[in-house]
């Protein structure tokens, strides 16, 4: 794939070019207290915190599946109803400095959003958005992207990848959208410095230490290990708050509700939801197929590592580690996975 270089100054100029052309630019930005990062729309390059190594608090998911999204508006007219459609076209947008795990999460979700029925709001935003990942140096001890078949410099889900080098970046186009971006005069032809490969290699080694790679055929073994004792043991700590799902790049469960905006009008909205809550599966009759917190926690793990792989051939996890950092009860998914990986190997489930 074609490689180019870009300096900080030229990247700033590129952001100005894009903004002038009407493209929204999103990048990691320091939170008001300066202690965290969030993906936010920026007006100028100086607002972006590309030099920070932390993960933004929430993933990129909300730029494609908003926390609350209007699906339609309705107006009641006596016995009749008029439906107002919401626009299906979205303004062009570029996400600059996406973490590779977040970009990968978006591509993983394309599968569920596109099988059989195509989710137009999702794919409308996908088509309008260019994702430029920034190679990660590994955040902390709970990153485990490499165990999920990714790496801190993975290009999955990205249209282009930037790798920091000196005071600028090496840029690599991954898709035609990325190539189009690299066609900008702000990118320069240049020699690939040796330090690029060293940066990527160091990050890979750092993250790989956190959790060994998922064993082959793990999802098949897990699918048959519904009664594994680890689920009950670990889930005792789960409050069912759903924090893990809200920060997760791949948790995509949603609710559909009507919200009135007046006596005779309102909106049908799609809101983020989480399988951790009791109401998620509660029937109107009072029957609940997943009545206990243990069962609900197991569902989350099963959906990610058995159900989704079986259905779509991919793990529903990009190993960002946010669920570990966000959990008020200190639940540790990579720790649980490590145990399950070992058991899978010991029980001959993994080849």
């Amino acid at each position, binding site marked *: 794939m074609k490689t180019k270089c870009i300096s900080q100054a030229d990247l700033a100029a590129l952001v100005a070019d894009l903004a002038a052309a009407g493209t929204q630019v999103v990048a990691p930005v320091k939170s008001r207290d300066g202690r965290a990062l969030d993906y936010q729309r920026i007006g100028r390059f100086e607002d972006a915190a590309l030099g920070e190594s932390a993960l933004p608090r929430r993933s990129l998911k909300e730029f494609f599946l908003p926390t609350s999204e209007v*699906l*339609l508006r*309705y107006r*009641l007219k006596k*016995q*009749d*109803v008029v*439906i107002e*459609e*919401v626009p*299906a076209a979205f303004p062009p947008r570029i996400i600059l400095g996406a973490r590779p795990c977040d970009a990968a999460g978006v591509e993983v979700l394309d599968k*569920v*959003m596109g*099988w*059989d*029925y*195509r*989710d*137009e*709001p999702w794919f409308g935003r996908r088509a309008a958005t260019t994702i430029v990942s920034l190679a990660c140096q590994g955040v902390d001890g709970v990153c485990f992207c490499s165990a999920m078949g990714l790496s801190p410099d993975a290009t999955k889900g990205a249209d282009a990848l930037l790798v920091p080098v000196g005071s600028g970046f090496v840029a690599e186009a991954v898709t035609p959208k990325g190539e189009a971006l690299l066609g900008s005069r702000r990118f320069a032809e240049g020699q690939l410095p040796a330090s690029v490969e060293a940066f990527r290699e160091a990050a890979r080694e750092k993250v790989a230490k956190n959790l060994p790679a998922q064993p082959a055929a793990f999802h098949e073994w897990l*699918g048959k290990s*519904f009664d594994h004792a680890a689920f009950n043991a670990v889930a005792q700590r789960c409050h069912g708050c759903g924090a893990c799902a809200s920060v997760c790049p791949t948790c*995509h*469960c*949603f*609710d*559909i*509700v*009507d919200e*009135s905006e007046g006596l005779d009008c*309102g909106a*049908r909205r*799609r809101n983020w*939801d989480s*399988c951790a809550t009791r109401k*998620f*599966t*509660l*029937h*109107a*009759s009072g*029957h609940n*197929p*997943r009545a206990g917190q243990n*069962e609900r926690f197991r*569902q989350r793990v*099963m*959906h990610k590592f*058995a*159900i989704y792989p*079986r*259905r779509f051939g991919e793990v529903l996890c990009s190993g960002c580690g946010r669920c570990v950092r966000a959990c008020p009860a200190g639940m540790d998914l990579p720790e649980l996975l490590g145990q399950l990986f070992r058991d899978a190997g010991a029980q001959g489930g993994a080849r």
Partner: protein
Amino acid sequence: MNLYQPHLMTIEEVVDETTDTRTFNLTFKDPEVAAEFGFRAGQFGEYSVFGEGECTFCIASAPTRKGYIECSFKAAGKVTAALRRMSVGDTIGFRGPYGNSFPIDEMKGHSVVFIAGGIGLAPVRCVIWNVLDLREQFKDVTIVYGARSVKDLVYKRELEEWGKRPDVKLVQTVDPGGQTPDWKGEVGYVAAIVEKVAPSSKDAFAVVCGPPIVIKLALPVLAKLGFTDDRIYTTLENRMKCGLGKCGRCNIGPVYVCKDGPVFTAAQLKELPPEF
């Protein structure tokens, strides 16, 4: 128009089945949609009351009867309570049909035994009328239907009609204590009555639907009568939001009820974790 946008339907008729269960007869407002709409027995839809939300029911009418659909519901939650407040001429939303269906073509040339409990007769009724509308293509038709009490029996006028037909064997039952002095049907739980009626499993399919307990008790009885698990069909109704395999709510183990179901064989049910 995105895939979450419903078609508009008019309530043409409201029938009270019991004190808490109601049936709507619905037609599409858009003549183009009405002309193109088709479905298969067992499929479901998302019905909506604007301002309240959506809820999931099977289509309770038969695909052999064109030009309208029917749904039956009990006021239990927010949307069904709102549905109950609606009357003839009002507008509701409908998305569908979704999901798989009963194998009507495979059942042709065979006998069919229908077993239903309570409002579980709604999805079974769709199959019953589908079969009865093509009656000459099937062998024996047996219906065993039960409810908690006489007043909880739904589709009473149709039960009467099926009871009178010489080509249908209808057995009705109510749970012990639910009978009235003039009750002429059986008294006992559905599964026990199926055992007593003992329909032949020779060249036969069974269709079972009802509260989870009815299904759980009926399956061993059917096995005893010689029905193999691949000839026993049921329909599951887990909580759903999208109906399109996206919202993640209806999973039972690896299965999406909205896409792989709602119709399952007993053999498929036995493969699933006990989360339905």
